[in-house]
């Protein structure tokens, strides 16, 4: 048996919702503990970090703004991979993963816009500007809301799965636009200072708290996402059971 067959077998076994519920139930306590621990350490490091010589104390907003923006994009990337799972492999949990990531991604995008605005006001002198970075992130926020509305508009999750997956993949074009907007256009938003080909340009005293906070946000995302996926599986089970009960009553009448 090749390695591919083994990994496909493991992947396919996860498609069984009952097996997924059992596995996620075992993982969740450890994931949640790791998320809380890394958040506590990250917050301590964020407030122990020195103030910026130009920005003063407002640089502390960076430790929650940048991870929120990263997670807003990562969450959409997770949704795009899940959408491929829906369209190509027809993995039963792929649509569950994509749908449940939506409100979490919307929350992180909202936080990146809000904290960015609260950082922009004292540093740029304005709450908002329609530059390429801010506008493309705002478009991402609208895409999250639009996809949530699409799921809400259809009662049967199976009917919403494929159009939502197609729309998610089409919208993925916005992710590289967000990332490179600061290089392609003249923006008020600063260019990248952590994920760069020539390495980070932030001093270690601020880089390490930022990375720990990014890890904490990532763990928070996966904790909330697993919890939301379990809820969605239960929701679909309730729907199926109600439909079966209605059919049995209808058949018996």
């Amino acid at each position, binding site marked *: 048996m090749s390695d591919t067959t083994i990994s496909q077998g493991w992947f396919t076994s996860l498609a069984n919702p009952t097996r997924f519920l059992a596995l996620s139930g075992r993982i969740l306590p450890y994931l949640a503990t790791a998320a809380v621990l890394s958040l506590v350490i990250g917050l301590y490091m964020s407030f122990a970090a020195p103030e910026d010589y130009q920005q003063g104390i407002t640089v502390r*907003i960076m430790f929650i703004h940048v991870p929120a923006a990263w997670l807003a994009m990562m969450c959409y990337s997770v949704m795009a991979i899940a959408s491929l799972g829906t369209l190509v492999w027809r993995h039963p949990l792929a649509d569950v993963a994509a749908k449940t990531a939506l409100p979490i991604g919307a929350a992180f995008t909202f936080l990146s816009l809000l904290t960015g605005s609260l950082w922009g006001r004292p540093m740029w002198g304005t709450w908002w500007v329609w530059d390429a970075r801010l506008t493309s992130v705002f478009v991402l926020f609208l895409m999250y809301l639009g996809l949530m509305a699409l799921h809400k508009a259809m009662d049967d999750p199976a009917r919403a799965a494929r159009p939502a997956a197609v729309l998610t993949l089409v919208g993925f074009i916005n992710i590289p636009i967000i990332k490179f907007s600061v290089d392609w256009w003249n923006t008020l938003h600063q260019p990248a200072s952590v994920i760069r080909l020539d390495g980070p340009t932030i001093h270690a005293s601020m880089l390490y708290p930022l990375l720990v906070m990014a890890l904490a946000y990532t763990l928070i995302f996966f904790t909330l996402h697993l919890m939301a996926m379990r809820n969605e599986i239960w929701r679909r089970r309730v729907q199926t059971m109600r439909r079966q*009960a209605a059919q049995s009553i209808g058949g018996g009448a």
Partner: protein
Amino acid sequence: MMSHEAFVFLSYAATAVTLAGLLVFILLDGRARRRELTELEAQGVRRRSKSAGGSS
């Protein structure tokens, strides 16, 4: 104009409220779904796969 400390406080407070709100929403949603499942099972409704001896 607010002080710089106020901008930092508002940013952290908004983040805490949003993430805590999301957590509470997901926890309450899970509790409601589990309650519905328990009620349906108490009424004798079984999933077809379960009643047929399946595992999913």
